[in-house]
C-alpha cells in the first residue's frame, strides 16, 4: 500500500506541475473567472484557436456522474488553455461502436475518443488510425497506472490508448439467502457446487444470469478455464502459442454444462438480457451474480435500490477447483474503455496533451464521484469510500493475475464465434469437445 501512496503522490505532483506550466504562473485554475482573466492576459501571445473533437459514451441521463466529471475536466482544460475549445459528441455504447466504424471507414475519426483494449483496438492500429501514446506515458505517467493496464492497449510494443476504467469480476451473493439455507461463502468449487444444489432444491435460483448478451456467460466459462488450467492456458490458446483443445479448456466447458444440468441458473437465461438477469438478483430471487465491479454502486450508494437489499450483498472470489492450476487471487476483468488520439488528427499534439490531462484528473475523481475504479492507482487511505469498494481495491492490490475478458482479448471475428459458442454451450446445443474445436478453428483461420 505504501508503494501505491507514493506513486499517487507523484501523479498528483505531476498534475499540479502541469497545471502550473499551463497557466503560465498566473492565478491557479481553482477560481473559474479568475483563471479565465489570467489566461486572457497570458493567451494573447499564445497559439491560434484549436477545436478538439471528443467522442464518448457517457450520456448525462444514464451516466450522470461520469458525464459531470468529463464536463468538469473539459471546462478546467479550456480555462487553462483558452485557445482550445473541446466539442463533445455522446452516443450510447452500441451506437458509439457503429459510428466509430463508419468514421474509421471514412477516415474521419474524432481527435480524441474511446476504445476498448486488445482485440477491439488492433484493427484500428493496423489501419494506422490511432496514434501511439508512448510519449504521453513517458515522464512518470505510466507509473501512475496499475501495472498491466496500459499493456492491454499495446500492439507491437507501442501503447495506443490510455485506460480509464479497471474492473474485476467478483461473485456477488445475497447474505440473507445464504444464511437462510445455512450456507457459507464457498472456499472450494466443491463447496460452491453443494451450495448451488442446496439452493436449487429449495426453489431458489442459485445464479442470476442474462445470457442474451453472451459476454455474461463468458465470464463463467473464463473462471472455470482459469481455475482448471491456470491463467496461461486460455491466454495461450488465444495468442496461438497454445491450443483451445487443451483438456482443461474442454473440461471447463463440461463444467458449464454440469452447472446448466444442475439448474444453477435462473430460467430462460439465454433469452434474457443482462439487465433482466441482474433483476433476478436484485429482487432477491437469485442468490449469486457474477459481474464486473461497475455494479458496485448498485450494492453501495445507489439510492434507488432499497438500503436493506444493499446491506445484504457481499462478494466472494471465484472458488478454486481441487487439482486445478488457477489460484484464488486470479481474476477475470481488465481495463474497460480507454482514450485514443486519432493518428490523422490535425491537432494531434494538443489532443495528446488533453488526453494526459484527462487521465490524471479522471484518476483523482472517478472513484469518489462516480464509483468508477480508474486504471490509475487509488490510494485507499486517502479517499472516503464505502467498505465494499475498499475491499475490492484491496483485492485488486493482491491480485496475482487479471485475465482480460475473452471477447476483448480475441479479434472481433473470433470474439463473435466465442460469444455464439458460449450461448450454444449454455443452451446445451454444443458438446464441450465441439465447443473447443470451433474455437480452435476460428482462431486458426484468423491467425492464418
Amino acid at each position, binding site marked *: 500500500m505504501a508503494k501505491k501512496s507514493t506513486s499517487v503522490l507523484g501523479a498528483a505532483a505531476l498534475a499540479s506541475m502541469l497545471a502550473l506550466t499551463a497557466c503560465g504562473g498566473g492565478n491557479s485554475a481553482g477560481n473559474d473567472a479568475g483563471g479565465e482573466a489570467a489566461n486572457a492576459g497570458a493567451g494573447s501571445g499564445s497559439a491560434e484557436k484549436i477545436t478538439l*473533437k471528443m467522442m464518448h*459514451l*457517457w*450520456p*448525462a*441521463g*444514464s*451516466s*450522470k456522474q461520469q458525464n459531470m466529471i468529463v464536463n468538469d475536466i473539459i471546462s478546467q482544460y479550456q480555462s487553462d488553455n483558452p485557445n482550445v475549445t473541446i*466539442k*463533445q*459528441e*455522446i*452516443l*450510447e*455504447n*452500441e*451506437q458509439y461502436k*457503429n*459510428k466509430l*466504424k*463508419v*468514421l474509421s*471507414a*471514412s477516415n*474521419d475519426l474524432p481527435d480524441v475518443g474511446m476504445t476498448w483494449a486488445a482485440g477491439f483496438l488492433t484493427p484500428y492500429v493496423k489501419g494506422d488510425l490511432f496514434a501511439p501514446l508512448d510519449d504521453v506515458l513517458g515522464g512518470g505517467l505510466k507509473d501512475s497506472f496499475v501495472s498491466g493496464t496500459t499493456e492491454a492497449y499495446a500492439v507491437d510494443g507501442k501503447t495506443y490508448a490510455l485506460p480509464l476504467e479497471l474492473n474485476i469480476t467478483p461473485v456477488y451473493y445475497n447474505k440473507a439467502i445464504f444464511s437462510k439455507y445455512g450456507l457459507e461463502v464457498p472456499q472450494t468449487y466443491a463447496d460452491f457446487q453443494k451450495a448451488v444444489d442446496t439452493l436449487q432444491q429449495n426453489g431458489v435460483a442459485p445464479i442470476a444470469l442474462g445470457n442474451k448478451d453472451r459476454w455474461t456467460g463468458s465470464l463463467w466459462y473464463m473462471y472455470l478455464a482459469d481455475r482448471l488450467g491456470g491463467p496461461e492456458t486460455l491466454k495461450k490458446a488465444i495468442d496461438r502459442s497454445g491450443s483451445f483443445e487443451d483438456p482443461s479448456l474442454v473440461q471447463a466447458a463440461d463444467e458449464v454444462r454440469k452447472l446448466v444440468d444442475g439448474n444453477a441458473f435462473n430460467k430462460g437465461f439465454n433469452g434474457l438480457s*443482462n*439487465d*433482466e438477469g*441482474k*433483476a433476478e438478483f*436484485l*429482487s432477491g*430471487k437469485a442468490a449469486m451474480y457474477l459481474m*464486473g465491479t*461497475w*455494479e458496485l454502486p448498485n450494492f453501495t450508494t445507489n439510492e*434507488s*435500490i432499497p438500503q436493506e437489499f444493499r446491506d445484504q450483498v457481499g462478494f466472494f472470489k471465484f472458488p478454486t477447483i481441487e487439482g486445478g492450476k488457477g489460484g484464488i487471487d486470479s481474476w477475470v476483468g481488465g481495463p*474497460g*474503455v480507454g482514450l485514443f488520439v486519432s493518428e490523422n488528427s490535425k491537432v494531434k499534439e494538443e489532443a495528446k496533451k488533453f488526453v494526459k490531462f484527462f487521465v490524471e484528473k479522471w484518476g483523482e475523481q472517478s472513484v469518489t464521484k462516480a464509483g468508477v475504479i480508474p486504471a490509475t492507482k487509488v490510494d485507499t487511505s486517502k479517499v472516503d469510500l464505502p467498505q465494499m469498494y475498499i475491499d475490492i481495491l484491496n483485492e485488486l492490490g493482491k491480485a496475482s493475475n487479471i485475465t482480460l475478458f475473452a471477447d476483448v482479448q480475441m479479434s472481433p471475428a473470433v470474439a463473435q464465434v466465442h460469444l455464439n459458442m458460449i450461448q450454444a454451450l449454455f443452451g446445451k446445443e454444443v458438446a464441450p469437445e465441439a465447443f473447443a474445436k470451433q474455437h480452435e478453428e476460428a482462431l486458426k483461420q484468423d491467425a492464418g
Partner: protein
Amino acid sequence: MSQRLAAARAEAGPAGRSAASPVLKTLLYAALALIAVAQVFPLLWLAVFSLKDTQEIFTKSPLSLPASPKWENYEKVWTEGNIGQYFFNSVWYTVAAVAATVLLASLVTFALTRMKWGWKKPVLGLFMVGIMIPIHSTLIPLFQMFMKAGLTDHPLSIILAYTAFNLPLTIMILLGFYETLPREVEEAAVMDGCSVNRIFFQIVLPMTASVLATTVIINMIYNWNEFVFVNTFISSDTLKTLTVGIQNFIGQYSADWGAIGATLMISILPILIAFFALSNQIVEGMTAGSVKG
C-alpha cells in the same frame, strides 16, 4: 364490371343473406372489441411503464401498477438534455422530409401512370429496387458522400436521406391507387386544354387525398422514430432528434428504463395527435374522391 356484378347477383341467394344474423353480429363485435383492447393495451402499458423505476420494471410483474408513480422520470427527461431542441428538430425534419417525399412521389406516380413516354418500366424498376437494400449496407457509402458534399452534421443530410429512402415505398403505395383512379375527369380536362400542372395539382392530387393522408402517416411514423441516420450523419447535440433522448438514458453497462419509458411517452404524443387528425382525412378524402369519381 357488369359481368362481375351479374355473377355476384347470381350467387346472392338466401344463404348469403344469413351472414347478418344477430348472433354472428354479436360475435363480430365482441371480436372487434377484443382486438381493440389488445391494440390499445401497449399504450396503457407504456404509460404505466414510464411511471416506474428500473427496479420495478424488471423485478415486478409487467401488469402491476407502480408503488408510487415516478413522475420524476418525466422531470428527469425534461431537464436533462435539450429535449425542446430535439423536439423542434424532430418536427421540422419530419415535416420537411414528409412533404418532399409525398410531393415528389406523387409527381413520379402521375408521370408513370398518366403521361406517355418510353422507359416507364425501367424507371419504375429503378424505384422499386430502392426498397430492397438493407439500410446498414448504405451507412458507410452515404456518410462518405455526405462528407464530400460537406453535409455531415447538417440537417439536409437527414432530410435528403429520409426522402430518398422513403420515396420508393411511397411511390409503390401511390401506384396501386393511381391505377384505380377514374380517368374520365382528366381526359375531359385535357380536351378543355388544361396544362399538365393544372391537371395534376387541381384535379388528380385532390382526388388522391385519402391515399396521400395514408402515405403521410406512414412517412411521418418512419421519420419520427428513425435514429440510425441521425446518429451516423449528425454529431452536434443541437441538431439531433428526440430519438437520441432515449439513448441519453442507455448507459455503458445498464440503462435507466423508467426515463426511457418517459421519453417514449413524450415522443409518442405528438405523433398520436397528428395521426388522429390525419386519419380523419382518409375518410374525408374518400368522400371528395367519390364525388368526382
